C-alpha cells in the first residue's frame, strides 16, 4: 500500500491513523534511540504528504451531525431556480457569483446556513498556550488545541479524506510540482532521540521526489538542492528541541509555506506562530505543523488555484467559506479594527529523509 493509500485508509477511521501512528512511533523510538547523532549533526527531510488535519468519524456523525455544506452548484440552483420564470442576465447570475470569489465580503449575511464542524475533538497544537471554550481536546487527550479551521472546513466534503477532491489533488499536485518542495534541515543534532537544542531551517528544494518501486510511495535517501534563487522567501531558521524522538519547534512570527497547484505560480499560505511537532526517525518525520493561517491569503490562494468548477466537485462555496473563516478567525487581530486576521489550523504531514545539498557544496561525500 502506498503512503497515499495508507493515509487515505487511515483517514477513514480516526482511530486507525493515530493508533497506527502511535504503534509506528513506539517501533520507531527503538530505532531513534539507536540512531544517535546523524552525520555531521545534520539531517534533512522533504515533504511527501500533507493534508489539512481534520478529525473525521465514521459517517461524519460526530463532527457533522447536521450534514455537509452545499457548494456553488447547489447554491446557484437555490438562488436562481430554473422554473422560477424569471429572466436573468449573465452579469446578475453567473458573473455575480464568480465575482464573489475574488471580491469577498462579509458585509451581507450568507443566505445559506453554514455548518461548522461540531464536537470537542480536533488535531492540532495549543498555539496560544491557553485553554478556552472554543479550544479542542486532541484525540490523545491534550487540552487547549487551537484549530478553528477544522470548524470551518470540517463539513465541506472537498476537504475530507480520502475521497475529497481537494484532499486528493492538493497532495498529488504537491509531489508533482517542485514549487511545493518544502524541506526542513535539522542541524546541531547530538542525538535524534533527545536534544534540547537543535536548529531547524526551512528551505524549498529544486528536485523531484524519489518514489518507490510502486511509483506511489516515497523513499528516504534522495537528494534535494536548495532553491536559493526563487526560494529565498521560504528560508527561515527556528530553534527546537527533541524529546523522546519528537521534535517541537519554537513558533515563528510569520512563515511562508508553499501550497501551489500546477501551472499556477505563487500558491502559498502565510502562517503566524508556525510550529512543528514531528516524530523523527532516521528515515521519516511525521506529525503536525500548525499555526494561524492568514485568512485573506488563504482565500486568495484558494481561488487562484482552484476554480469554481473544481470547487463544485466537493461542495466548496468560496464565498460561504470566507464568511465562516472570518467569523471563526481567532488570532492576530488587526490593530485598527480589532478583527482577527488569522485562523488557527493544523496540517498532517509526512516527510522523508533527504540529503540537502547547499549551493557550492559537492553532493558526493
Amino acid at each position, binding site marked *: 500500500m502506498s503512503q497515499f493509500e495508507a493515509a487515505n485508509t487511515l483517514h477513514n477511521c480516526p482511530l486507525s491513523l493515530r493508533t497506527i501512528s502511535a504503534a509506528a512511533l513506539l517501533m520507531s523510538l527503538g530505532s531513534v534511540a539507536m540512531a544517535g547523532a546523524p552525520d555531521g549533526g545534520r539531517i534533512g527531510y522533504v515533504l511527501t504528504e500533507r493534508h489539512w488535519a481534520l478529525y473525521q468519524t465514521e459517517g461524519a456523525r460526530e463532527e457533522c451531525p447536521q450534514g455537509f455544506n452545499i457548494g456553488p452548484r447547489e447554491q446557484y440552483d437555490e438562488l436562481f431556480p430554473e422554473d422560477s420564470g424569471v429572466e436573468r442576465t449573465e452579469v446578475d447570475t453567473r458573473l455575480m457569483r464568480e465575482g464573489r470569489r475574488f471580491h469577498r465580503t462579509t458585509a451581507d449575511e450568507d443566505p445559506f446556513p453554514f455548518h461548522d464542524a461540531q464536537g470537542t475533538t480536533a488535531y492540532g497544537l495549543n498555539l496560544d498556550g491557553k485553554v478556552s471554550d472554543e479550544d479542542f481536546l486532541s484525540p490523545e487527550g491534550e487540552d487547549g488545541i487551537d484549530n478553528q479551521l477544522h470548524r470551518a472546513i470540517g463539513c465541506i466534503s472537498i476537504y475530507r479524506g480520502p475521497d475529497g477532491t481537494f484532499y486528493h489533488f492538493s497532495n498529488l499536485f504537491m509531489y508533482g510540482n517542485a514549487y511545493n518542495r518544502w524541506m526542513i534541515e535539522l542541524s546541531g543534532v547530538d542525538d535524534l532521540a533527545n536534544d534540547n537544542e537543535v536548529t531547524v531551517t526551512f528551505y524549498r528544494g529544486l528536485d523531484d521526489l*524519489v518514489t518507490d*518501486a510502486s511509483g506511489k510511495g516515497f523513499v528516504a535517501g534522495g537528494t534535494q538542492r536548495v532553491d536559493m534563487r526563487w526560494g529565498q522567501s521560504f528560508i527561515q531558521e527556528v530553534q527546537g528541541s527533541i524529546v523522546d524522538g519528537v521534535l517541537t519547534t519554537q513558533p515563528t512570527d510569520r512563515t511562508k509555506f508553499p501550497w501551489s497547484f500546477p501551472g499556477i505560480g505563487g500558491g502559498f499560505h502565510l502562517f503566524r506562530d508556525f510550529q512543528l511537532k514531528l516524530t523523527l526517525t532516521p528515515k521519516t518525520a511525521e506529525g503536525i505543523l500548525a499555526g494561524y493561517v492568514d485568512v485573506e491569503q488563504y482565500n486568495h490562494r484558494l481561488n487562484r488555484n482552484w476554480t469554481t468548477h473544481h470547487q463544485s466537485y466537493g461542495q466548496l462555496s468560496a464565498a460561504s467559506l470566507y464568511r465562516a473563516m472570518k467569523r471563526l478567525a481567532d488570532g492576530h487581530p488587526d490593530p485598527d479594527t480589532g478583527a482577527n486576521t488569522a485562523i488557527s489550523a493544523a496540517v498532517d504531514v509526512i516527510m522523508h529523509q533527504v*540529503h540537502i545539498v547547499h549551493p557550492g557544496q559537492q553532493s558526493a561525500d
Partner: protein
Amino acid sequence: MRLMYKRAAPHGSSKVFCAGVLGFVALVMLAGCSESDPEPETPGTRALVSLVTAEQYRNSLSYIFGPGVDLQVEFAPVARTEGLLANSAAIAGIGSSQLQGIQGVAASVASQVLDTKHRNYLVPCRPESIDGPDEACATRFLSRVGRLLFRRALTDDEVAMHVKQAGSAAEQLESFYAGLEIALEGMLISPEGLFVVERAEPDPENPGQLRLDAYSLASRLSYFLWNSAPDDELLAAAESGELQASGGLERAVDRMLASPRLAEGMRAFLDDMFAFDEVKTLTKDSTIYPEFTRVTAEDAREQTLRTSIEHLLANDGDYRDLFTTRSTVMSPALAIIYGVPAEPGWTPHTFPDDSPRSGLLTQVSFLSLHAHPGRSSVTLRGQALRERFLCQTVPEPPPGIDFSVVSNPDANYPTQRQRVRAHLETPSCAGCHRITDPIGLSLERFDGAGGFRLTENGAVIDASGGLDGFEFEGAVGLGKALRENPELPRCLVQRVYSYGTGAPPAMEARPALDYFNAEFAARGYRLRELLRTIALSKAFSRVQNDPGEESNPEYQEESRISVASSR
C-alpha cells in the same frame, strides 16, 4: 609456455587452487615471457558466418545515416555460450517472425532516410526529375550505402540489380525517392547486411595457411573494437590492400584504438562479459526493497559500465584495479541505495577510505543481479564471481535438492552464514558450495538490493570469507584477493579473444592465449594494450576454413567422399 596455461577448470571440485602454486605459476609465467617473445604459431580460429546483433545493426545504421534517424531495433535474444552472448552469434539465425520485425525497421529507416527532412543531405545527388527513375543518381546513392551496409564494395552486377529495382519502383510509384526507398529497404534486410560472412584466402606469407580476406578482417576488427560495421576509412584500407600491406594493420588498429568509438565497442564487450542483459529481467520484491526500481537497475548497469570505461580507457588503468577502485560515478536513483547524496545526472563519486565499498563487486549491479528478489545470496554471488571474472564453471545443483534447508526462515538461524551452513553439511551440496559460499559470505553486509547493512534479523553479520586459499574480512578484502588472483586477468584475456573472434577458444589456441596473457601482464594489464596485441596477432586474422567454400556444393561433395573413404 604450454604447460603454464591453466584453462578454466570445467568442474567446481578442481577450482580451488593453492595460492602458493598460483603465485609460482604467475611468477614463472612473467619470468618466462618477455615483451620480445614472438607470438607462437597457432592454426587460428574458424571463419564464421554470424548474425549481427541488434546493437551492431543499430550502430552501423547510425554511422551510415547519422543520429537523426530514429532506430528502434530489437532482435530476439540468443543464448549465452561459455560466458558470452557473442559466442552464439555464429549459431544464431533469423526466424520468419523476426525477419518481419527487421523488415519493419528497414521500412522505417528507408522511409526516414528518403523523406524531405533527410534526403537533401543523405542522398549525394539530385535526380533529373523527382517523378521517375534516375539511374545515375540511384547508382551513386545505392553503391555508396550498399558498400557500408555490406561491408564491401558491391559488384557491378549487384549495383545494377539494386538500381534496376529502384528504377522499376520509381516508375510504378512515379517518384524517384519512393523507388530509392524500396531499393534501400531491400538492402537493409539483405542477408549480406544481416550476416557477417567471413571469407578466407591463402596467406602469402605462410604457404598452406589461410587468413581472413581484407574485407573480413576489416569487419572482424570493427565489430571487435567498435561493435559496428567498418567505417569508410577502414573499408578503403581493405579495398586498396593497405590493410594487409606492411604496417597497414598496425595503422588501422591504432586509429581504431584512438577513436572515441572504442568506448562504445568496449561497453558492448563489458556488457556481454558482465551478463548485463540479465538486468532487463531483474526484479526485486518491492515490499522488501521499495527503493529498488527499474531506474535503479538500469543505472546500476550504467554505473558499472561507466566506471569500467573510465578506469580502463580514459585513465588507462590496470584491469585488476577495477576490483579495488573507490572511484565511480553516481546517479540520484543509485545514491539512495548507496546512502549518499547525488545531484541530477551522472556525477563523479569517490567512496572514502573507510567505506565498505571498493571495486565492482561492491557495486549495486553485481550485488543486486546476483541475489534473490527478496534476499541476498551467497551462492549466486560466489558463482557469479567465479563464472564472470574467473571464467570457471560452477555446475548446476543435482536434481532432487531440498532447498527448504536453506530457505526456511528459522529464528535460530538469523543470518545467511548460519543458514547456508547446511550446504556444507550436505555431501551432495558441499562440493560446489565450498567454492562459492565463502566468496558470497564476504559480501553479506550488502543486502539483495546492494544496500549496506551491519545486521540481519538483529544479528551482527560476520563477513569473513575466502577465495582460493586467501582468507579475508568483508568485501574490501574480497576485492583485494580477487585482484591478486592470477585467473582474473587470464579470464579477461580469454573473454576478449573469444569476443573478438566470435567463438570460445579451442584447445589449440592455448599457446596464443599464453602469449596474450604474458603480453597483458608485461604491459601493466592495460585493456587497450591487450586489444592491440590481440588485434594484431596472427591468431586473430588466421583462419582454418573458408565458409564460402564450405557452402559450395562441390566442396560438400568432396568432404562427403573424403569422410566416406576415411571410414
